[in-house]
């Protein structure tokens, strides 16, 4: 099951990754489990654990319980500061 993950702004810089195409293992099926799986990659991924980091699935704001399915586009980013 492959999804695209995007990282923005300070989080993108902290992780050093802008976009990745990943194959999710079975059991990873929502935002919370995706985040845990990414955090398990190691210390470099800790910036993703901050409570202020938001998620979007297919370009809509998502919660921890939001479903992530094959082909989805998931994004992680800090609180927005436009305008």
């Amino acid at each position, binding site marked *: 099951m492959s999804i695209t993950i995007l990282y923005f702004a300070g989080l993108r810089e902290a992780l050093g990754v802008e976009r990745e195409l990943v194959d999710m293992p079975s059991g990873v099926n929502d935002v919370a489990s995706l985040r845990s799986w990414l955090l398990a990659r190691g210390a470099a991924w800790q910036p993703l654990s901050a409570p202020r980091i938001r998620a979007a699935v297919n370009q809509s704001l998502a919660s921890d319980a939001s479903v992530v399915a094959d082909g989805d586009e998931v994004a992680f980013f800090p609180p927005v*500061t*436009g*305008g």
Partner: protein
Amino acid sequence: MSVETNIAIQHEDFDVGIEVDALSGTGVAGAVATFVGFVRGGADDVLAMTLEHYPGMTERTLRDIVGLAQARWFLLGVRVIHRVGRLLPGERIVFVGVAGRHRGEAFAACQFIMDYLKTQAPFWKKEETANGARWVDARDSDEAALKQWQT
């Protein structure tokens, strides 16, 4: 006037006079309320600001916000322009213009769209200062402004 075509994310500057003319162009509007946001200069030590966004989601979010405003007030026209890329102090960042029959709905919708844009639309500001670059923090007052529309 289609709302969808009146949302723009662009690096280029915009002309407030032209935008207001376009909003009032149908001749039915009695009122146009606008907001223009700028890169603050002066007291701050900001040398420049770079605006990042999430292409696709930004446009979708702004369309949703405008749709919420249209569901709430009878509007004759809405225009949203948000610049991205590197901007200097004093430069325009954002334009929101709303045309209505009367001023009450134009003012309310313009402020509503700005309050939602500030808290929901995926834009991020990074400031360059003499001491290096820093990402701008979200302001609690923006969340508070949003809540007034949700009670």
